[in-house]
């Protein structure tokens, strides 16, 4: 399977490079904001003094409900950062496999500028569209149920991808109408809403986080589009 091998090799190479670069960007951009927010998250989770509210036993039940209190988690510092780099590289390889698979299906050489455009398509599908309904969230923000948000996120990405492909590759008028409809549909349905509750996380911090995540993601997809197109062009050349 020479084509499968070319795709995997070039995606692994591009993912390794982009994952490493984006990790550096995150250590300066998003990670400090996440850590700042976790201070508020812990403050909100800490058992309240008995004078403030009800009996002390209620705080224990509250802790048990959180998924990340009892299970294993990496230690802060080197271990946590190493897992972040690893997860970034794996994510980049996964998305690189998608892009490179598309290049293989296209079946003709893809220039770096075309690769950049495919990468920007990935930004719209996987960051911009889901982010409209479910903006990037800091730890400690009130959120709707996880499974519902994941379902909406995946459905939105899928509908946006199909919609964009219809707009780009089907010249007929019906395709333009259907494509625009598919892109709009998830937002007409609406993302799962977070319950109304007060968050300890300052609004300025979460707005800053949204901007930093979106910019980092734009860099990620631009780099991934360019690097996959160059890598696949070199590796698949007979």
């Amino acid at each position, binding site marked *: 399977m020479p084509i499968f091998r070319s795709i995997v090799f070039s995606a692994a190479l591009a993912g390794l490079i982009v994952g490493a670069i984006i990790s550096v960007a995150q250590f300066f951009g998003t990670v400090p904001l996440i850590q700042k927010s976790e201070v508020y998250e812990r403050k909100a989770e800490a058992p309240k003094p008995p004078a403030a509210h009800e009996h002390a036993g209620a705080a224990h039940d509250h802790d048990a409900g959180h998924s990340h209190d009892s299970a294993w*988690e990496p230690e802060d510092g080197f271990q946590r950062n190493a897992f972040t780099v690893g*997860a970034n590289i794996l994510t980049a390889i996964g998305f690189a496999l998608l892009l490179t698979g598309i290049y293989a*299906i296209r079946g003709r050489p893809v220039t770096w500028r075309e690769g950049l455009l495919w990468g920007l398509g990935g930004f719209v599908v996987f960051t911009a569209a889901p982010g409209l309904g479910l*903006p990037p*969230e800091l*730890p400690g923000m009130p959120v709707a149920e996880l499974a519902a948000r994941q379902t909406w996120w995946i459905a939105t990405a899928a509908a946006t991808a199909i919609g964009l492909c219809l707009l780009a590759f089907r010249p007929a008028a019906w395709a333009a109408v259907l494509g625009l409809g598919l892109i709009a549909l998830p937002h007409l349905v609406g993302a799962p809403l977070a319950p109304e509750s007060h968050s300890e996380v300052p609004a300025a911090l979460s707005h800053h986080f949204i901007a930093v*995540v979106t910019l980092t993601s734009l860099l990620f997809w631009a780099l991934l589009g360019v690097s996959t197109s160059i890598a696949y062009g070199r590796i698949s050349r007979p």
Partner: protein
Amino acid sequence: MQQSQTAHLPAVATGSSAVVQAVMAMALGLFIVGAVGFSHISAVHNAAHDVRHANAFPCH
């Protein structure tokens, strides 16, 4: 170089076998992203925690 890229190349490169291989690679990619970003296993969630937040994957 430029001339060899014209009409004949696409027909050769996008045979059904090429499409099958490309789709397999894309499925592998979706599986990897799903495991890193969407798995409900607590240990996986905690390991990739900062990346999930930084990629705006739904978290917690």
